[in-house]
């Protein structure tokens, strides 16, 4: 038993012991409610998706058709789109987030750390619908006018790799979705990294400086080895965010149920197809069941990612 738990009960105070039992039961009940909530979410999505799982079986996961007319539904394209956009977003976000965290912990002058830290945290607080509008009205034109033609010119002829950067530069598509996702998860990853970098005991860093290490060498040889697991946990946390992001992606991904070889091509994600198609699905239809089944798949994927992230981010036991 931890020293925080107070086992003492005032002698003879009936009302006190009744109040204690009531309050304790309430607290415990609230705790159990959280577990019930998680169970209810999983079960409700699974039961809702059951007709679809029954109709299509395991091939549902790889089937790439989404055809309401012939009542054929498959999760292949959205699952692919979800994984590809999220991983691309991580690829772009992790180096930037690391740079920000490094700047905030080791480089920035003291008076500058707090304002910049708060600004980065505000970036995390901006609602995702705002990112969607910003992406749609600001990023998409820039992508189609400058970035995508530039990438085609520069990389389009490279063997194998080039195929990723060909195609019409519409501005919307997988790459733009990944970019907006990256912007959204940078503050989460950066804030987590900053917090774990702060946990490194100063004496470790001071010893390294003492033998003549540069700031970067302290970072690479002391801070990163010490915080490696938590850093990976922070990255997984960002990945978990990216996987389920809905509004921002829906605005910029192009919403087409197709897998294209080009990163400029339109696509969809689980969250975007659910957001778009759910309101126009009839209650009890196979389409609705398939969307709930997609929701179940997304929940399983993000639960695994977030669970790993939490395990890695657990504070080390002294």
């Amino acid at each position, binding site marked *: 038993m931890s020293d*925080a*738990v*107070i086992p003492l*009960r*005032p002698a003879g105070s009936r009302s*006190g012991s009744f109040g*204690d039992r009531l*309050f*304790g039961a309430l*607290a*415990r009940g609230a*705790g159990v*409610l*959280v577990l019930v*909530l998680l169970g209810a*979410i999983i079960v*409700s*999505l699974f039961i*809702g998706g059951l007709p679809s799982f029954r109709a299509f079986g395991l091939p549902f996961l790889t089937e790439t058709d989404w055809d309401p007319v012939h009542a054929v539904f498959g999760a292949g394209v959205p699952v692919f789109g979800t994984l590809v956009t999220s991983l691309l977003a991580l690829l772009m976000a992790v*180096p*930037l987030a690391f*740079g*920000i965290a*490094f*700047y905030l912990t080791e*480089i*920035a002058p003291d008076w500058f750390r*707090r304002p*910049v830290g*708060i*600004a980065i*945290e*505000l*970036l995390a607080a*901006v*609602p995702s*619908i*705002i990112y*969607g*509008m*910003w992406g749609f009205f600001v990023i998409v034109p820039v992508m189609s006018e400058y970035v995508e033609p530039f990438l085609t010119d520069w990389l389009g002829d490279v063997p194998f790799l080039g195929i990723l950067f060909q195609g019409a530069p519409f501005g919307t598509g997988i790459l733009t979705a990944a970019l907006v996702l990256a912007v959204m998860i940078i503050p989460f990853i950066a804030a987590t990294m900053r917090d774990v970098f702060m946990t490194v005991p100063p004496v470790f860093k001071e010893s390294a400086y003492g*033998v003549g*290490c*540069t*700031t970067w060498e302290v970072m*690479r*040889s002391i801070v990163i080895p010490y915080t490696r697991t938590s850093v990976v946990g922070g990255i997984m946390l960002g990945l978990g965010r990216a996987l389920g992001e*809905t*509004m921002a992606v829906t605005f910029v991904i192009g919403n087409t149920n197709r897998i294209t070889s080009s990163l400029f091509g339109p696509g969809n994600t689980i969250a975007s197809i659910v*957001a778009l198609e*759910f*309101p126009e699905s009839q*209650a009890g239809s196979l389409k609705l069941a398939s969307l*709930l089944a997609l929701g179940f798949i*997304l*929940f399983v994927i*993000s*639960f695994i990612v*977030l669970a790993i*992230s939490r395990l890695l981010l657990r504070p080390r036991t002294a």
Partner: protein
Amino acid sequence: MSATTLPALGPARDARLAASLSRRRKWFDRVVKVLCTGATMIGLALLASILFTLIWRGFGALGLHVFTDITRPPGSHGGLLNAIVGSQVQTLIGTAIGTPVGLMVGTYLAEYARDSALGNAVRFVSDVLLSAPSILIGLFVYTILVAPFGGFSGIAGCVALAVIVVPIVVRTTEDMLRLIPISLREAAVALGAPKWRVIVFICYRAARDGIATGVLLAVARVAGETAPLLFTSLGNLNWSVSLTQPMASLPVTIYQYAGSAFEDWVDLAWAGALLITAGVLALNIVARVALRPRA
């Protein structure tokens, strides 16, 4: 240890080699620092770009009619009144439902179950829910409150938001209660106070600012949530504050308007986006700066 730190391992025989290595290490350090500073500048530039776009597009579209008129068909100069009120109602009720639950869960984790298996499970699940895709919360509430009762409703939206509020309040409540010194609790117990009175009158009071911060952050988070409302309160272009009817909300209206082809709707979407972002960021700044003066 890396090759670049080699000179530190022993006295360098070749002074010129040592000097060049040391120059390289310093040069490399400088490059990394410049890159990291650049990364931070990019981050700040992104925030600036978002805020600038919002102010530039939103201010022009703001006007009194936004607050006094309800949403109307394109071309007839409507406002956002029903969406603003709907958002406030749902955020308020969602927070009012979610906060007490989150508070009790946080209390359970900090005061009753610090190291128990059940407590660890609850803490873990709550942390996972904190980052769970909000659209799935919407689907979940759809299956329990919309499909069985045959219609979208404001109350379903409130419940969806409440589910999002709970883990946020849990996290801050537990963290804040854990910061309270044991001696404070012991002093109260020594005076004969039962445990529940110690928690309510000593611990909650001492942690009040921190808990309030959590609630404010939760309000800020759900005020901008769109995805969980799409399948629950749905949105409503008419005036309605009935909790059993579909209810408008600012984020959902922005979503519908921003993607439309009508210029006045897009303008209203920007006005709404500016309002919501200003509100959310103001709440965040109050929560972070005013109520938590430490770094």
